[in-house]
């Protein structure tokens, strides 16, 4: 494939897809290169699915600005893209007297960050808000604007909207090198060469390796692993708010949160690992997470574990995101988007579009947006099974029609993992005991055994 594009985005995670969407909707010709068999197969695969207000982000940081802008745009467009928003609020809970002394500082910082509805909550109110939380919870800070979204449908919607505006998404297209000559990039990829006037590096955990194509990378990625344990659906009745830890220098606390799919999860851990690609769990950590969840919400005892997973966040030696334009090289770096990427991605895309406009030329006049609503996966909005149909995955109530549709269209699931992420099939308590053979058959029929 040898085509000239205005923009080539490297990386099909939530950040790359939001950037692709922004430029495609601005009328530029865009291509995205993803190394995996499907989009969202790297850092974006294993996050918590939370919409952050930025109340605890570093003051004055680019990260905070992108979170705030991303949050606002998500709320603005979610209705037109059929994206979920489970209004939950968050509570930063103090479990010791020492932690309690830090709550006032958290409120002050939130206010300074422009999140003004954040307020302290004393123990009586905390009991009222979360009666099933352990009595060891002393006091808290309430963050009314933190909510639960879902990690898959938003980036999938961004991808579809970009495609509707003419973008091209190449999968199994790892970028292996590139040359900049006569004002254009010629990238070598496993899907063939691609040429573009400007390149945007949104390669996540491979960001520094990709950056080396343009310059000695100004950052090094040390993937930070986060493990999660997901409890079965009855557990989601035990807490309402996202239960956040009080940050400390010594220990990194974990979050107890409902998921948009009606489960309760605990995680993530924060472990620096050398591995960029495979996010592995380990039994001892999973047992600790499970035990910690039971300490926080004792009524969890007796409720089974549905799923375990881990994600890798692209952490760098820098505290803030590394987003900058290299005017002489027609290159924009988007690196070190650690753990707030899902919320911030739309804000990052706006910021990158601004960098492009000031360094590489004005964006064309914007055509009317085409809206591409995605299938809803969450219980708080109507799901396809409610209209009837043949259920293929019983635990998650996924219809056969949903699975067939996820294997069709302009961006069909690239592998079984992509199919799971798009539909939730095989993600429930039985983990495919009942349905995996049937789902595999549907997948093989549609992809003619290309699995």
């Amino acid at each position: 494939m040898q085509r000239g594009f205005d923009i080539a985005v490297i990386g099909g995670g939530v950040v790359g897809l939001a950037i692709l969407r922004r430029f495609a909707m601005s009328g530029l010709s865009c291509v995205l290169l993803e190394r995996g068999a499907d989009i969202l197969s790297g850092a974006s695969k294993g996050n918590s699915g939370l919409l952050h207000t930025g109340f605890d982000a570093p003051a004055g940081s680019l990260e905070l600005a992108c979170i705030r802008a991303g949050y606002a745009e998500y709320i603005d467009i979610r209705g037109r893209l059929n994206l979920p928003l489970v209004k939950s609020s968050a509570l930063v809970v103090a479990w010791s007297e020492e932690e309690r002394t830090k709550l006032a500082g958290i409120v002050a910082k939130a206010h300074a960050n422009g999140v003004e509805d954040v307020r302290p909550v004393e123990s009586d109110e905390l009991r009222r808000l979360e009666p099933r939380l352990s009595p060891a919870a002393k006091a808290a800070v309430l963050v009314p604007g933190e909510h639960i979204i879902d990690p898959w449908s938003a980036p999938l919607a961004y991808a579809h909207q970009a495609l509707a505006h003419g973008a091209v998404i190449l999968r199994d297209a790892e970028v292996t090198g590139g040359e900049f000559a006569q004002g254009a990039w010629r990238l070598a990829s496993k899907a063939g060469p691609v040429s573009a006037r400007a390149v945007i590096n949104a390669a996540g955990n491979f960001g520094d390796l990709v950056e080396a194509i343009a310059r000695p990378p100004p950052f090094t990625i040390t993937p930070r692993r986060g493990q999660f344990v997901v409890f079965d659906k009855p557990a989601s009745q035990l807490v309402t708010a996202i239960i956040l830890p009080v940050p400390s220098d010594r220990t990194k606390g974990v979050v107890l949160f409902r998921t948009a799919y009606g489960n309760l999860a605990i995680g993530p851990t924060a472990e620096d690992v050398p591995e960029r690609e495979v996010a592995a769990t380990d039994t001892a950590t999973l047992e600790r997470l499970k035990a910690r969840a039971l300490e926080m919400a004792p009524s969890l005892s007796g409720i089974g574990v549905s799923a375990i997973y881990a994600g890798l966040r692209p952490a760098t030696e820098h505290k803030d995101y590394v987003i900058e334009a290299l005017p002489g090289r027609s290159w924009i770096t988007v690196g070190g988007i650690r753990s707030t990427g899902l919320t911030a991605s739309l804000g990052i895309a706006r910021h990158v579009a601004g960098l492009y406009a000031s360094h590489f030329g004005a964006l064309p006049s914007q055509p009317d947006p085409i809206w591409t609503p995605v299938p809803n996966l969450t219980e708080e909005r109507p799901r396809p099974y409610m209209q009837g149909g043949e259920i293929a995955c019983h635990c998650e109530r996924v219809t056969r029609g949903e699975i067939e549709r996820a294997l069709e269209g302009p961006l069909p699931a690239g592998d079984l993992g992509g199919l799971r992420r798009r539909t939730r099939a095989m993600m429930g308590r039985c983990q495919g005991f009942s349905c995996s053979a049937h789902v595999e058959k549907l997948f093989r029929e549609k992809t003619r055994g290309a699995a």
Partner: protein
Amino acid sequence: MEQRDVVIIGGGPAGLSAARRLSELGIAATVLEREQQAGGAPRHCGHLGFGWESHRRIWTGPRFAERLRTDSANLDLRTGHTVLGIDGNVLRVLNQRGISEMAAGKIILATGTRETPRSARLVGGSRPRGVMTTGALQAHVYLQNFKPFERPVIIGSEWVSFSAILTCRHIGVRPVAMIEAKDRISAPRPGGLLARLIYGVPVWTGTRLIAIDGRTGVEAVEIERHGRHARIACDGVIFTGEWAPEAALLVNRPKVTLAGNVHGDLKTSGACWREGRAIAEQVARGQA
């Protein structure tokens, strides 16, 4: 709202025998089965050993399931019907046309059991393809004719673990090892001997599975034996047994009568069939 005297949730051996016995006793029962075909777990147990208690025959699981369906020909058996929830005596039922409510004079829950998957056992490692339970393996092999791997390890040594060996042999797959955390195998004798001598599968007792390794497919498992760690190269992992009742409908503690393996202790399909009959007789006498 539709009203039924007795609603049985689950069309496996227990549910279908309860419905048939109720019908013989003059009580109309409705069986709601979520799959497109009734018969329950025996549908995908392709080896012999089914039907003796009920029909004095020894059949394969699919043959037994077929016979159960034939026996149910005149019953009100509704496949593709999923019960979403139970509130008092009202069931929320999903089918092709949507969700409706059904009132039942009596509810019998016969939803069976399933094996504990890797996740609930908190087994770490990566998440490659080729990790499944015996039930999923049997559905791959006997219902879809797929061969998911060539040399898997089998985790556990219950009766069902030997069923996993049989299922592998059916498609010409030889497991590389059977791994059991306890010091002796869980199935009654001569299970271990059978595995070793007849099927050529080494049985490693006192051996704990630590992690699964592999990028796209399984490449190895990490084990611990007598305090030592080792890797076994393999291309699949079969988690067997550790049965967990399919009891999601019991969350709000509805008033239902349990029949078959949803009780917890694993029973044979024949025992479930007998229990279904016994429950039907109790219901007919107003004792359950």
